[in-house]
């Protein structure tokens, strides 16, 4: 039995092990590198002892919330690719902003980034309108083109100006090093704007996202709303770049929102979950990156959110892969059980219910299965309390030492008769009402009998006027027969 479960579970466990591997490896590395002080470090982090820890933790949380909230809209409006393109398209603007201001001046970077993002998006819509290019190719073109341009500019700047431009590369992959309280101001501003926008324009954004033409018909300026959302998205991306980096910021837009989408179908809840998940991955990723100084913050945060996504995908109680797999398995077990019980009834029926028990071999004959298989099926029935087994010694034939005699318990009998009734009623219904040929109805009834439900059965009995015989002339047990717990021989032969 356990072997069977193990066989079934093996595949799932293997997959899980694969997914958890990076985490375990990461933990192993942490313990080997920093054996003495990692507890110390963890303690320092979670008590937020230092000012610098407070700053980076707050930064990571803010980014998580910002990107999570924006992501809710981006994902539900199918703009994931758009967010990705936008995040790459801002890179040249950052380099140019740097060049002009000659410092990491937030305002200059912001203006440059927004402008370059605007140009990128403009190019996409121009390409879409004036060429036959599809949107995804246009986005790919802009994404890679702008990214390449940005990298060229940044590399050139760094090479030409010596040490003055240090820190620019953190815009590529993100970094928590040297984050100051001033860097948090744009993040806070962005959060305030997002929340203000979502609270005030909640219903307008919902409508214009779901049904733009209806939104226009009630007089909403859909394009203006779309533009506002776009600007907000650009602001969110630009303010997050320093910590998370250009390459991966779109992951933070997409993954927490996609995870929230697994959990709920309501927009308000989706935004809430997405924001919480974003904050959670932000702080955990930040912690891991703090623990192992060689790990870059951005990728670790993204890995954390991907890990969270997989966890939800597998273990979410409603639609998770594991719970639904267990449900399917249980249903399969129930159906197998019901089929065995039905066969028991049929064996009893063959002997016109003359005795209450039957031999295991006759059941094996009926099910066309080997003795060992039947043995297992009967074991299941006994475990569930549907049947009992007596071993009767046959004295005459000494070479066959024993014969297993099976009898059904009242609950087993109830299920068996109910299945037989469902099966035969459905066969009768198909032949009478849906004009199926009698030799075509069996396979359909084999499936329907397990799922038909008492309410439909009552309906069928009413439509067919409480029938007693199925299309093959066999008895259809009534509710009375089921309740009585046994069919007496005279009843079976009665017309």
């Amino acid at each position: 039995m356990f072997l069977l479960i193990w066989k079934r579970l093996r595949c799932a466990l293997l997959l899980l092990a694969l997914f958890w591997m990076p985490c375990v490896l990461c933990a192993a590395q942490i313990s080997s590198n920093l054996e003495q002080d990692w507890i110390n470090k963890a303690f320092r982090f979670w008590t937020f002892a230092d000012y610098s820890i407070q700053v980076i933790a707050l930064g990571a949380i803010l980014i998580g919330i910002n990107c999570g909230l924006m992501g809710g809209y981006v994902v539900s409006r199918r703009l994931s690719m758009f967010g990705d393109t936008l995040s790459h398209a801002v890179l040249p603007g950052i380099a140019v902003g740097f060049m002009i201001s000659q410092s990491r001046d937030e305002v200059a970077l912001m203006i440059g980034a927004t402008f370059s993002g605007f140009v990128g998006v403009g190019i996409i819509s121009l390409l879409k309108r004036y060429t036959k290019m599809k949107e995804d190719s246009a986005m790919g073109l802009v994404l890679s083109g702008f990214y390449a341009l940005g990298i060229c500019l940044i590399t050139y700047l760094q090479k030409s100006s010596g040490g003055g431009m240090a820190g620019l590369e953190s815009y590529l992959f993100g970094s928590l090093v040297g984050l100051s309280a001033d860097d948090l101001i744009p993040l806070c501003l962005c959060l305030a704007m997002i929340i203000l926008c979502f609270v005030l324009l909640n219903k307008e954004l919902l409508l214009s996202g779901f049904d733009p033409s209806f939104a226009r018909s009630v007089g909403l300026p859909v394009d203006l709303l779309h533009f506002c959302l776009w600007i907000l998205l650009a602001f969110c991306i630009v303010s997050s770049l320093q910590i998370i980096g250009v390459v991966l910021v779109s992951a933070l837009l997409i993954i927490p929102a996609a995870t929230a989408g697994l959990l709920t179908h309501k927009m308000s809840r989706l935004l809430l979950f997405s924001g919480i998940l974003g904050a959670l991955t932000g702080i955990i990723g930040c912690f891991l990156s703090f623990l192992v100084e060689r790990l870059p913050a951005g990728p670790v945060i993204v890995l954390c959110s991907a890990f969270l996504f997989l966890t939800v995908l597998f273990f979410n109680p409603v639609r998770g892969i594991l719970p639904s797999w267990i449900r399917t398995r249980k249903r399969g077990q129930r159906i197998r059980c019901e089929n065995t019980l039905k066969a028991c009834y049929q064996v009893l029926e063959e002997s016109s219910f003359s005795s209450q028990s039957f031999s295991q071999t006759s059941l094996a004959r009926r099910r066309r299965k080997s003795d060992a298989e039947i043995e297992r099926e009967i074991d299941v029935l006994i475990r569930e309390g549907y049947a009992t087994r007596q071993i009767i010694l046959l004295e005459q034939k000494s070479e066959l030492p024993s014969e297993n005699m099976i009898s059904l318990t009242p609950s087993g009998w109830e299920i068996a008769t109910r299945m037989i009734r469902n099966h035969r009623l459905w066969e009768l219904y198909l032949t009478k009402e849906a004009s199926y040929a009698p030799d075509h109805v069996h396979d359909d009834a084999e499936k329907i009998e397990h799922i038909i439900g008492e309410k439909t059965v009552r309906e069928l009995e009413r439509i067919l006027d409480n029938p007693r015989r199925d299309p093959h002339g066999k008895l259809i047990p009534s509710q009375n027969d089921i309740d009585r717990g046994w069919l007496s021989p005279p009843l079976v032969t009665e017309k």
Partner: protein
Amino acid sequence: MKATLPKPLEIHDLTVAYQKKPVLYGIDMEVEAGSLVGIIGPNGAGKSTLIKAVMGIIKPVDGYVKIFGETTRKAITRVGYVPQRASVDWDFPVSAMDVVLMGRFSHAGWFRRISKRDRIFAAECLEQMNMLPYANRQIGNLSGGQQQRVFLARALAQQSDLYLMDEPFEGVDAITEKAIVDLLKSLRNQGKTLLVVHHDLSTAKEYFDQLALLNLRLVAFGETQDVFTHDLLQRTYGGKLTVLSEIGSRQVEHKQPPSAVL
């Protein structure tokens, strides 16, 4: 008194150019209050375009639309719109109730939250379409007929006097189709005015009091028994007006196309 009231819908010399075809040419139409009008015509005849132009979703090149004597923008709370079912993303995270509440937005106004009264009213509209048990279902989990009922419940929630519906019978089951017809007739009996785009000629005669036959031009408009004639249908469906549509696309090529959505 009644004669002085402005007509629910007045279309004057309306010409619409899309990015490409279809195009509408000089449509003139006046619809009386309390009429149930079917708009029929072949594919690409501009049926949906006409509705969208009336709703102000597409800007016409020429001509104007008056709703109760005012521009569409001013009369916006008096017009209800049911877009084509295929025009929205059914995977969007909203429930049936959320969709119906959207019908209350034009009454609620900017920045305001949906009130409790709106919620109760929206529930009544769902109930009227027999969809209340599904109120909290995600719309993507509903069948095609149920989705269309939700759309109609939203139109009811708009409490309009003039309704424009784009193919409400598209891809729905027989029961829903009957429910929709009953709804249309009961709205008409309440004195509302309805314009319904319809593609099924076999039922058009039975469903509508008046018909507008459309194929780039308004071929005919009048009482069903006067308009639903072999001759007029032949003229509507007997091939496109090839010269007209070719000239139309040439015109469009010389004009800046209307700005596309980002």
